[in-house]
């Protein structure tokens, strides 16, 4: 069974040092989480989170583009208007619609992927979350019962304050 402990840090350098030491002791990024009331940017290599957001957003935009082109092509041919020899399906007058729907695809995919990648709406409610205090960086570590003592020592040596076992809020 997993246990959770937290330590508080007043600055990001000390927190980064603790993360490095925990990683050197075998903890992976999935076992560590930083909580704060504002974004904390560590240097590259400290606690990197892989993101596919750009790729997914471009894919979403392309998918919407193909969908709208297909839809407009279908509707123009489903009831072909008399165009006096002009093409029934023409890119120029429908380009604006293609562009806007492509961008709508990008907007919706960004939103959807943000919710997915951030873990919002799919958070495991059994995992405890530390309460955040202003200007405090909170590091949560997931460990086993055997690792608990060593992890506590490591956090304390790294300069963490209030190192404690994290219980699920009632």
């Amino acid at each position: 069974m997993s246990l959770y402990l937290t330590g508080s840090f007043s600055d990001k350098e000390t927190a980064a040092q603790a993360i490095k030491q925990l990683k050197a002791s075998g903890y992976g990024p999935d076992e560590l989480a930083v909580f704060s009331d504002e974004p904390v940017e560590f240097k590259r290599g400290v606690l990197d989170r892989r993101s596919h957001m750009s790729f997914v957003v471009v894919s979403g935009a392309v998918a919407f583009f193909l969908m709208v082109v297909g839809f407009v092509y279908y509707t123009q041919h489903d009831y072909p208007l008399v165009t006096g020899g002009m093409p029934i399906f023409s890119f120029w007058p429908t380009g604006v619609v293609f562009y806007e729907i492509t961008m709508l695809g990008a907007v919706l995919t960004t939103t959807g992927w943000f919710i997915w990648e951030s873990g919002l709406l799919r958070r495991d409610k059994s995992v405890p979350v530390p309460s955040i205090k202003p200007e405090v960086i909170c590091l949560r570590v997931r460990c086993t019962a055997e690792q608990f003592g060593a992890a506590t020592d490591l956090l304390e040596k790294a300069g963490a304050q209030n190192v404690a076992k994290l219980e699920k809020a009632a």
Partner: protein
Amino acid sequence: MLPPTIPFQQVRGDLWRPLAGFSKRYSLILALLSAVALWGLIAWGYQIRVGIGVAGIRRPVFWGFYLVDFVFWIGISHAGTLISAILRLTDADWRKPVTRAAEAITTFALMIGGLFPLIHLGRVWLFYWLFPYPNSRLLWPNFRSPLMWDVTAISTYLTGSLIFLYLPMIPDVAQLAEHAKGWRLRLYKLMALGWTGSDREWHALERAMKLMAGIILAVAVSVHSVVAWDFAMAIAPMWHSTIFAPYFVVGAIFSGLAGLIVALNIIRKTMHLEAYLTPHHFGNLAKLLLLMSLLWLYFTFAEHLTVWYGNEPKEMNVFGARVRGRFSPEFWGMVIVNFVIPFILLGIRKLRSITTATIASVGILIGMWLERYLIIIPTLSLPRLAAASGRYSPSWVEISITVATFAAMAALYMVFSKLFPIVSVWEFEPHEEEQE
């Protein structure tokens, strides 16, 4: 800029204070604005019941105040998204207290602007014919029509703007949820989506905001281009112009900035946020406004010079009516409030202040409304067929609806500022980089 010495608790206290309670003055102003907005709704109801004939639009002027208002409000909507997105992408630190106020303007202005094509419809109850589905004769909407361009562009922009406003509000509403009670607690909890403040969430939010800023910039430019093409695609005098799209985009940013300065000054005074919205912010916005004023003059000059040099009789009819005929008071008034006054008040450093920036901005808002009026009405009054010329004077219905939209905008903004911090709290906490 906020000195980093102001403690976080005070920042939060100052920015959350306006959310608590309703003062008598607030309630009175909101009631008054709501009454004016309601009057506009009654006027619209009257128009729906009796028919579009109660409006002043007559042959050949089929686009009157409603289209002027449509272009004006879509222009105002460029305040938030464009300004916020540009400043976000360039990591301009001074944007922090400005962005949310600007993004809210965008959302509400778009909601109001998007109503006008519906108000303008003779039979508004058939608006759903614009949805892409086959009607009873199996005929689909014509995607080649600029009306469909408008529908897709405004829908995309409104969706994007709402999300662009909402995403950076999530950390703030999550914090508010910890202190709220009753319906506010339910609202904030729902909006927070279970935000915990983890690094995963922050990283995803920052990436999403960077991407959204890029996307929304592209959409914002396209929306006002589409609005410009509504006119430019018609071979009407002084409309069929290749520079209409950038001309409209520049005008939109110009009027949007002016709207933002006015709104920020009112917020600053009424919510006592003098420590957060400082002369530094207004100074930067005033410089941007001056730049846009010069750009607007350049485009206006280029547009009119080309027509004058071409000397095409039908175009010259409209040109003459604008610069020396019956529309000349509006035209020269527009030049004075859009260029001369801002150039003096904002260009001379000694005169530049929060008050003068606000005075210039109010003038620009009037001037930009006049600009839209001058683009639409003279061209329609003087079509290519001289015998079909006509005059336009707005009816009480159009005037009521126009005034009501301004009241509705102010009322929506007041309600928003009572529900959410108008300045982003989490973005405003003193960061280490700022302290160095």
